[in-house]
């Protein structure tokens, strides 16, 4: 486990991570692991994250070492697509039993690897560590090493048991596993000046294939996609790429950076979501390749493709404009990538509305991004009624979000589109964006909404009316009773990780005359967990401007307080 710990520390120090760069030495030491609150947490574990990151490698046997829960409850549930082998969809697990827990599971693991190689003969076996064998001290690194030697085949330990942290951490630990054991261990059959890696793309719903034809046309070869639709050999020989694109998901930043460090493969962070972003990404790929020696004419061809495809896409979106103009879209997502669709939605005439933004302006995009980016993870924690209120306040016509909030949207009978990983539609590249517009149109104009919104004739009120009344009553009560309103405000949790209420923060600001979020954080512990509430702290400081004394006042206040 010491190797896991050091890996984790390594990941925490990841200099490529934008967030880390803004942190103090002390903060960095704490790492970016969100502290989980018992009874109030949601989301996958580190093992889940590791598996998500590597499982799209199609020809590898992914063996989960642990009790049945880790694989049995979750296998074959990802939407990645393969153009070749489907071995990745086969669930392998040691399914350890009580005896293994008592006497150790290494022997079973070793024999499992043997069976897999004998029966399925994959180019490699990936072994995922989970909590229970980690607790009982099963040394998977050693078992993998021995098996690899014995069977003459790569057996890669992925040391990311669930309890070390959340999904995000697991993504990165998976990256470390392939950096240590896979990348650079084989050589490509040949290389070209047009070889690139795409990092952090999982080919969900086959999205990679929405972009690949464009790269094919340009003569650009995806040497390795890490890890969507990848073969083991692709990953193993990916160190010969000339350049890399890291798709906006931050999950594999460590791979991109370390490959740059070790193999001098320059990378950029880009996105294939959205028309403009796709064009930018194509340009950037070509730019990097030209920098690395590809002929300069590549850029001309790239621009020609971009011009043609953008025109095609806008032409395809055009017919929807009339139907979509003025429709309000509420975008809720924890990831960054959905924001890149904003331009296309706006181009199709839609307005984007956020939790608190009622009319969209030119600055909306930035503002929503700021607002939603920070509150995003809160959405999951909101009570459904609060969420309903938000939907209502936003006066949205349709909500785009991840599967988690689906049921609230549907129960609220609000058109909804899945834009998270579980979605069935592919929205990447130019065609993907057209697809998204088309799907929005389909969802918005589905007559089902008119149907399901009808009140059952025997019901005096719909639950929406009940909810609205409750909300209104609450608002009225608060308006009528400032003390109650104050109490309500003060009892709102701000930092969920550390369970810090707004009252505590307000008191600290007043008492210690704090004027920066960092200072508030220092005093109250708020923001020392996942850090996502730092923005909120700044907002609170803003609303408490009158408590910001001038430096001199500050001093006198401090004296008064003392």
């Amino acid at each position, binding site marked *: 486990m010491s190797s896991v710990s050091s890996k984790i520390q390594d990941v925490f120090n990841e200099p490529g991570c934008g967030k880390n760069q803004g942190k103090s030495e002390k903060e960095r030491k704490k790492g970016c692991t969100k502290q989980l609150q018992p009874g109030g947490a949601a989301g996958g574990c580190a093992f889940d994250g590791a598996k998500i990151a590597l499982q799209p490698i199609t020809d590898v046997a992914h063996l989960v070492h642990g009790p049945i829960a880790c694989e049995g409850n979750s296998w074959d549930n990802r939407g990645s*697509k393969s*153009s070749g082998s489907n071995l990745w969809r086969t669930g392998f697990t040691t399914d350890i039993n009580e005896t293994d827990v008592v006497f150790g599971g290494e022997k079973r693991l070793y024999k499992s690897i043997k069976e897999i190689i004998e029966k399925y003969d994959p180019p490699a076996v990936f072994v995922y560590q989970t909590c229970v064998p980690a607790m009982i001290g099963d040394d998977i690194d050693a078992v993998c090493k021995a098996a690899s030697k014995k069977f003459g085949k790569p057996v890669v330990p992925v040391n990311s048991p669930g309890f070390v942290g959340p999904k995000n951490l697991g993504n990165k630990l998976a990256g470390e596993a392939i950096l240590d054991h896979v990348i650079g261990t084989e050589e490509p059959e040949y290389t070209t000046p047009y070889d690139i890696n795409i990092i952090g793309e999982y080919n969900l*719903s*086959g999205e990679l*294939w*929405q972009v*690949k*034809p*464009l790269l094919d*046309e340009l003569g650009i070869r995806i040497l390795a996609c890490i890890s969507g639709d990848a073969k083991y050999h692709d990953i193993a020989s990916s160190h010969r790429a000339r350049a890399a694109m890291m798709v906006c998901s931050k999950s594999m930043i460590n791979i991109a950076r370390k490959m740059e460090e070790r193999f001098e493969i320059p990378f950029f962070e880009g996105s294939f979501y959205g028309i403009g972003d796709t064009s930018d990404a194509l340009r950037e790929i070509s730019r990097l390749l030209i920098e690395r020696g590809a002929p300069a004419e590549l850029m001309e061809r790239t621009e020609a493709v971009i011009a*043609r495809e953008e*025109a*095609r*896409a806008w*032409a*395809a979106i*055009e*017919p929807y404009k009339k139907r979509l103009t003025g429709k309000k879209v509420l975008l809720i997502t924890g990831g960054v990538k959905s924001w890149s669709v904003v331009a296309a939605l706006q181009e199709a005439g839609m307005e984007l509305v956020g939790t608190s933004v009622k009319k969209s302006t030119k600055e909306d995009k930035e503002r929503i991004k700021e607002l939603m980016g920070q509150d995003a993870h809160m959405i999951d924690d909101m009570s459904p009624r609060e969420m309903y209120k938000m939907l209502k306040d936003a006066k949205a016509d349709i909500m785009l979000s991840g599967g988690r909030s689906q049921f609230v949207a*549907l129960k609220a*009978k609000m058109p909804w589109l899945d834009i998270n990983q579980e979605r*069935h539609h*592919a929205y990447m*590249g*130019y*065609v993907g964006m*057209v*697809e998204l517009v*088309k799907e929005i149109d*389909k*969802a918005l*104009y*589905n*007559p*089902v909404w*008119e*149907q*399901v919104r*009808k009140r*059952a*004739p*025997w019901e005096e009120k719909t639950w929406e009316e009940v909810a609205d009344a409750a909300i209104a009553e609450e608002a009225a009560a608060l308006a009528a009773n400032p003390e109650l309103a104050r109490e309500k405000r003060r009892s709102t949790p701000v930092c969920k990780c550390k369970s810090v209420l707004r009252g505590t923060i307000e008191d600290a600001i007043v008492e210690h005359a704090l004027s920066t979020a960092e200072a508030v954080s220092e005093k109250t512990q708020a923001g020392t967990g996942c850090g996502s509430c730092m923005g909120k702290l700044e907002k609170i400081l803003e609303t408490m401007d009158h408590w910001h004394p001038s430096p001199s006042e500050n001093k006198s206040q401090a004296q008064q307080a003392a």
Partner: protein
Amino acid sequence: MATVITPKKSCSVNPLKMSQPIGSALAFMGIKNCMPLFHGSQGCTSFGLVLFVRHFKEAIPLQTTAMSEVATVLGGLENVEQAVVTIASRQKPSIIGISSTGVTETKGDDVDAYIKLIREKHPELDPISLVYVSTPDFKDAFQDGWAKTVTKLVEQLVEPISAGAPRLPNRVNLLPGAHLTPGDIDEIRDILEAFGLEMLVLPDLSGSLDGHIPDDFTPTTLGGISLEEIASLGRSVHTIAVGEQMRDAAVALESKTGVPYTVFDRLTGLEPNDQFISLCVRISGRPVPTKIRRQRGQLVDAMLDAHFHFGGKKIAIGAEPDLLWALSQWSHELGAETAAAVTTTSSPMLQRIATDEVLIGDLEDLEARAAGCDLLMTHSHGRQAAERLKIPFYRIGIPMFDRLGAAHQTIVGYRGTRNLTFEIANMFIANGHEPTPETWSLPKENENAGTAAVTAH
């Protein structure tokens, strides 16, 4: 919204339509201890019999006046007489339901007059009801034969009652269209029972052709509504007709007995069932039972879950007017498009269908229009078209000879709608196309880029 058109062609290819005499016979089969009788040549009966046997997988009572070539020319009095007498002595039915056919209508047999003569000559037939319906094969279609028969039964067998007469407060009448299965009728009964309401069904196939094992062998119909019950229909508090085709029968019943009626043009879908349940509340004076409330909630949930899969789908439907209307409107409300609609006969419902054109045509017409659709819904004869077009095929309507359980297919009520919705959504899911590296191949340079991109998958 739709324009109703009839194709100009002379030859009907792959018929969707069935003849009205067999619709009439099926209606008679929902009456207790009845023997349906075709006035026509033996083949008319044989074809109808085989069709129903294959659909219901049951022994079917259906007799014929066995008109020969000579008898056809001379007129069928003797044949009708002999048939009625023979049936009366052999099968001892309470009622013989006589439907004419093309042969006897071409000759112009006056069966009503025949019956008068037979009655005079055969007083031993007095205890047996003889109901005659004119149903030439060369006019109208199956559901017309059914509807005319029910109207005739009402006119002839229901006891008139004064408008102010006392009625049974908990009893309602159901006049189901030909497109309702025994399962549908059972579902409606279940709903009414939840409100403490009893119902009489004219005709009641749920008691006769629902595939139960009879207590003993009977040569006539099993179960069904009895003549006494038919006579007493006027004592119910309300009549519920399902399918526009049943309006005439409901009107006839009202004018004879004063029983008010409500016609539901369909009971598949959320809104019509809301109206139906509201009616049940009004009639029974009871609140909506928990079971029904939950069923409504389940349907709404099913619609929400399913709309993702229905949205934008194209459906080709071949069905008689009332069934076509029900399927088209239900799927429209889930976001699907009725891309092709073919039916058998005219009806006021047709122009209300949310599509451009409704054809009174055949399965060749439907097949031509169904290319590129995501689903074909019609009776079992659609199987060839579905195979050729390689699109999913949902069997609905009569005949359904290549699957079991036709009598139990249930699409009415919240629950029936829910099950149909899931079933079809699952067909869409099962037939979804997995993307491949070629799915989004670039269009040819000279193609219309926009169109290509929109229809990428």
